[in-house]
């Protein structure tokens, strides 16, 4: 049965993120290069490269997303965040040309999620970024659907390694639908089988009796 006792909180919609979603929490740990716009007094210990007591104005630092989002203000007095290169003009034309060949896992495993969060930072290229992410998803959808629905009982790691986390979740959903249908068709849907986790323990006496 597919009902689970634990229902995970899904990642948030678009620019919002869910506080309790594990995917969003992991996503917010991605580091972004950003530039401080004002002095951070007595926080020099955070910046390993310089030895001063405070963080000077205009220092380039790597901040995780949650910190950058919290510090960012519309009046732009505190930090300004640079767009990661995957979302910039150069890579956007690559994605426009052919989205299916790109290894999205290497580009940052949370490509779609991070892209949606970057829209918080009011870059002038926001509409183009949003459009590029959408078009990439649509372009890769066919490939994901075909590979998830046709790979039965094979090692899928080669197919999955080029997908980012959003697409992997879709792939898993497609695979589970396929697997449950195939197992039903063979008639093993209603037979009880020992869980593979327990088989590994080799403590089950009944199998020794039968052997």
């Amino acid at each position, binding site marked *: 049965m597919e009902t689970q006792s634990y229902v995970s909180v899904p990642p948030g919609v678009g620019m919002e993120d869910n506080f*309790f979603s594990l995917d969003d929490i992991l996503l917010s740990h991605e580091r972004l290069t950003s530039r401080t716009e004002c002095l951070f007094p007595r926080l020099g210990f955070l910046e390993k490269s310089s030895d001063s007591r405070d963080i000077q104005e205009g220092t380039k630092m790597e901040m995780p997303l949650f910190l950058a989002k919290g510090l960012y203000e519309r009046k732009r007095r505190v930090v300004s965040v640079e767009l990661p290169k995957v979302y910039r003009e150069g890579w956007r034309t690559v994605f426009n040309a052919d989205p299916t060949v790109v290894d999205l896992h290497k580009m940052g495993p949370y490509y779609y999620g991070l892209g949606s969060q970057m829209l918080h930072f009011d870059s002038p290229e926001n509409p183009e970024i*949003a459009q590029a992410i959408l078009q990439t998803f*649509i372009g890769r959808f066919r490939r994901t659907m*075909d590979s998830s629905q046709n790979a039965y009982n094979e090692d899928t790691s080669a197919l999955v390694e080029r997908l980012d986390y959003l697409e992997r979740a879709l792939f898993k959903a497609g695979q589970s*639908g396929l697997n449950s249908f195939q197992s039903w068709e063979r008639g093993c849907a209603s037979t009880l089988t020992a869980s593979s986790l327990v088989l590994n323990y080799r403590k089950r006496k009944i199998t020794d009796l039968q052997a």
Partner: protein
Amino acid sequence: MDPSEVEFLAEKELVKIIPNFSLDKIYLIGGDIGPFNPGMPVEVPVWLALNLKQRQKCRIVQPDWMDVAKLEEIRELERKEATFTPVPSLYYMELTKLLLNHASDNIPKADEIRTLVKDIWDTRIAKLRLSADSFISQQEAHAKLDNLTLMEINTTRSFLLNSLNCMYKLRSNLQPGSSTGKAQDY
């Protein structure tokens, strides 16, 4: 939904059997099942038919549509049309599996029927994937598909809904400023 659940729903369909015992009409909550006389065909739900068959109390008569010529016609029609053609029975896949597993001795040419039904299924699933792909690539909001059966919908359901959700999320990025600070209750 599980395929087993869909199969459970399919077992409500009526099928003709020829019993070899006699029994008066039985009154069940779901409906009445007519009197059983040996040698006289009677319509019963599939769950009862399979149970009687396993106890060797009846012989199952194949449904009208489960015939090699008819299925070949349906298969050719399905291959020609770009849209979904009307199905012989709303639960053709489940009924084929159930009846051919339990009563293949009562149904002639069982293997050919199995192959034909599998062909029809594969063609329909391919059409379903094609239309899902065009749905997503054109970013439509509504689609209407006629003549789909529950089993076919069931195999695609989780994948298609999740991808439509993802697409919705990414599309909502294009309209910024719609909602800020929404609280979620858990």
